[in-house]
């Protein structure tokens, strides 16, 4: 598994890229593998204020609907409109073109999230159950 080292990860399998007061959020390689072929992505409207753990949106595979959670608190400043026409980018490039939303976050946001190594260990343990 190759999860970028510079990202932070949530137990609910979202990733976060922190740049200043902006957090870009997507779902991990592992999460998209578990979902299977993504065919529909439902994202919040820009301006929506989210608390960490809120439902951020829904990702649908051919088989099922899965909720995506906000890995940290913030206000939605941008959503990935490309996913409306190309939801498969979540599978093809989860850490790049498949990003979901950008949040405006408070200083110090991201505490409590895992680094890549910790996340990989977490996934390995979860997979072993």
């Amino acid at each position: 598994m190759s999860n970028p080292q510079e990202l932070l990860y949530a137990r609910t399998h979202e990733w976060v890229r922190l740049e200043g007061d902006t957090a870009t959020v997507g779902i991990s390689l592992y999460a998209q593998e578990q979902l299977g072929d993504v065919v529909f992505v439902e994202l919040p409207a820009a301006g929506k204020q989210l608390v960490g753990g809120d439902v951020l949106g829904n990702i649908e595979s051919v088989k099922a609907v899965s909720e995506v959670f906000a890995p940290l608190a913030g206000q939605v400043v941008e959503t990935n409109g490309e996913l409306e026409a190309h939801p498969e980018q979540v599978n093809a490039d989860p850490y790049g073109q498949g990003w979901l939303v950008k949040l405006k976050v408070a200083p110090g946001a991201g505490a409590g999230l895992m680094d890549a190594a910790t996340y990989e260990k977490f996934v390995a343990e979860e997979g072993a159950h």
Partner: protein
Amino acid sequence: MTAENLKRTPLYECHLEAGARMVPFAGFEMPVQYRGVIEEHRTVRTAVGLFDVSHMGEIDVTGARALDFIQFVTCNDASKLVPGRAHYSGLMTPRGTFVDDLLVHKFSDEHYFLVVNAANKDKDYAYLCAQVPGFEGVSVRDRSDDWAQIAIQGPRALEVTQKLTSVPLADIKYYRFVEGEIDGVKAIIARTGYTGEDGFEVYVAPAAAAPLWRSLMAAGAGAGIAPTGLGARDTLRFEACMPLYGNDIDDTTTPLDAGLDWIVKLDKGGFLGRDLLVRQREQGITRKLVGFEMKGRGIARHGYPIVSGGAEVGVVTSGTHSPTLEKALGMGYVPVALSAVGTPIEIEIRGQRVAAEVAGTPFYRRAK
């Protein structure tokens, strides 16, 4: 996750070797997908896919009055079957609703072979046994552990399967079957399926299943054969609008509600549920299973409300993103007044009402 109580089919190792993701289904550990649902779906539509359907239930009905028995418990007319023919039918409650849907194969006047849904097998077997006392000499036997079943489906299914048998497969017409050898083992080879494509369902002894699976994979390599999981099996049957028990039909729905009038033969004599079906046909149905296409953004799923005029009028029974038609489609029950193709309806998706429109079915029909 504990898998202790789950059964495995004889093809379990083949699935692991092929990289399947295994899930619990109807008491079995079954492959839900190997490479991806959409890719597997397309392989079946354009080439050929291999399915492990060994979880399905097989029940033998034998005895001098076997036909009378089958006629009594199912709604289709089994007297029309000749040896080597099969048909789709419904195992009926006294209320004319489905205990299960099933395939009835006729071997002889005294031997019928039923193939039922895995999740319903124990229920069906008990139900059938409970009907036996009125039919002297009839024996019902659960043969599910004696048969493995492999489905070979897709436009190249015939060509691939033919490599492993001297039985002239092209001579087996749709819904016919033969007993013959395939890959050196005894089999029942039926031209049936649950995908909307041409193909075969092959029944062999459990010990013969894995060698046959490997032989089929090898025989089909040049044709692009690929193992196909339950995920694609569902999207394939969905596009062909073949009902799924527990989703589109159940013990609250009659075959007439589900638009399966062609399996209801009221003139064949008495059978379980006939009185109610006669009345329903006279009075007319009040709701109907229809197909629909999403017009707004969203995917309808089993259980979502169908709304019209601001009121909930029905329920979605199946829905997904169709890999072949590349749009969001669904099936569900609506009042008859809203069942005409083109009727606007709404689907309530996570609290939001999204526009949809009743559409013609089946969504997908293969070119002959």
